């Protein structure tokens, strides 16, 4: 950000520092970073303090739930400590946002486990980099009544590799391992569907 360098030469100016900080956020290009920085500069002090407090608060108080590894303010998290939920079934997801997506459906009342990623050797991520050991330990020591694990990783190559790997680890424990159904998305066009998706849709067809 050359445009904002402090003319006195004593290092980066506060504005340049802020632009730089915004620029490091995902999806924020140099122009957006400048726009955001100038917005903060012109905004009332209170708004800036709110933003700063929110940023610090999230770093200070959000931890990973000791059981499900989801992000939470207290551990065990709200879902893990909810006595109304089925405690025999765990839905394994890649990221915390996937928990939000599945909760929104209102169709699942069991527990969750967040892997924080997916096996992807091309990106340097192996099984040991995920919360798989925590899942096995949890099933063995805490949630001993688990009868089924639904692997809800994304239906792409990495998600499939992860689900097959989890299947190999979990089946010996006497647990039923299932996978989310795959097929055509709502509003799709058959003509443009790829062979794998269309094949799965045929294979797992349902009575009308």
């Amino acid at each position, binding site marked *: 950000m050359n445009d904002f360098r402090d003319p006195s030469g004593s290092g980066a100016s506060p504005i340049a520092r802020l632009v730089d900080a915004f620029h490091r956020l995902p*999806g924020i290009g140099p122009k957006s970073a400048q726009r955001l920085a100038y917005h903060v500069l012109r905004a009332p002090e209170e708004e800036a303090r709110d933003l700063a407090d929110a940023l610090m608060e999230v770093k200070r108080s959000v931890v990973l739930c*000791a059981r499900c590894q989801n992000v939470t303010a207290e551990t065990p998290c709200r879902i893990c400590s909810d006595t109304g939920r089925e405690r025999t079934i765990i839905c394994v997801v890649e990221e915390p946002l996937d928990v939000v997506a599945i909760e929104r459906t209102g169709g699942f009342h069991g527990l969750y486990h967040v892997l924080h990623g997916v*096996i992807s*050797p*091309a*990106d*340097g*991520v*192996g*099984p*040991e980099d995920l919360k*798989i*050991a*925590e899942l*096995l*330990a*949890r099933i*063995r*020591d805490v949630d001993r009544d688990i009868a089924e694990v639904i692997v809800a990783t994304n239906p*792409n*190559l*990495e998600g*499939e*590799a992860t689900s*097959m*790997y989890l299947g*190999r*680890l979990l*089946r*010996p*424990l006497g647990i039923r391992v299932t996978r989310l159904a795959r097929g055509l*998305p*709502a*509003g*799709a*066009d058959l003509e*443009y*569907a*790829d*062979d*794998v*998706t269309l*094949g799965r849709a045929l294979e797992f067809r349902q009575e009308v």
Partner: protein
Amino acid sequence: MPGRAPRVTKTEAIVIRQRRLGDADRIVTLITPLRGKVDVVAKGVLRSKSRLAGHLEPLTHVEVVLAHGRSLDVVTQAQAVESFPALRGDLDRLSAALYLTELADRFTVEHADATGLFTLLHAALVRLDRGDGQQVVTRTYELALLDATGFRPEWTRCLGCGVEVPAGEARWSPLEGGVICVECVARYPGALPIDATALRVLRAYQSLPYEEAGRIRLTDDLAARLEQIMHSLMRAVAERELKSAAFVSAARHARVAEETATAGLDEIGNGAYAEDAD
């Protein structure tokens, strides 16, 4: 318009990798015959109604139309030619395929002819998909890849003096990429012992046509030794850890553990993960 470069290119390609770009787009890495490795932008593929997404999954042989962009080309059409479904449905073969593509990624340069490497990768994926032995496919691919890129390992003659080394007496150096005789071993401080049977198999894999190489019967133990030798060679040549190589081994360990457990010997509970309990 004479003289102007075409604005779109149509090419076949194998998808080897994807990474996110913004909210809904992805950068897809392709291996193409004529342009080598290219990064292209696939717009909107993270949306559920995307018409491209399913065709651009890694390990797909695809025909794409690319529009030339300012920095990266953009995929405007994609049609899967082969998606290797059998390979995707089996963890051992899938992990092997991921390893092959990681090697292809490391050994292919961007924007240069890679017809040979493309053909090698394509043949190996076809062979894995139709159920050929994972070992013979992987090992012959590694050796052919090294050959094509100028890193052909020397399994027969000593790197130091050129004399033919009997398999039983050989040592080898992953860094130097070949065998060393007993006379010269002092000059190669990093030289390691090498299993005589494994060395004979590697010599055969390097010299025999693929179909004949496939007839060599391997025990599980010998296959594991071959894998270990070739993984250390590939690591030395690539000058980095190969994450997919570790995953090939992890997938196999998990299979063995499952088979053992199904046979009534429950070992998983006391296995490697016990120490991670909270």
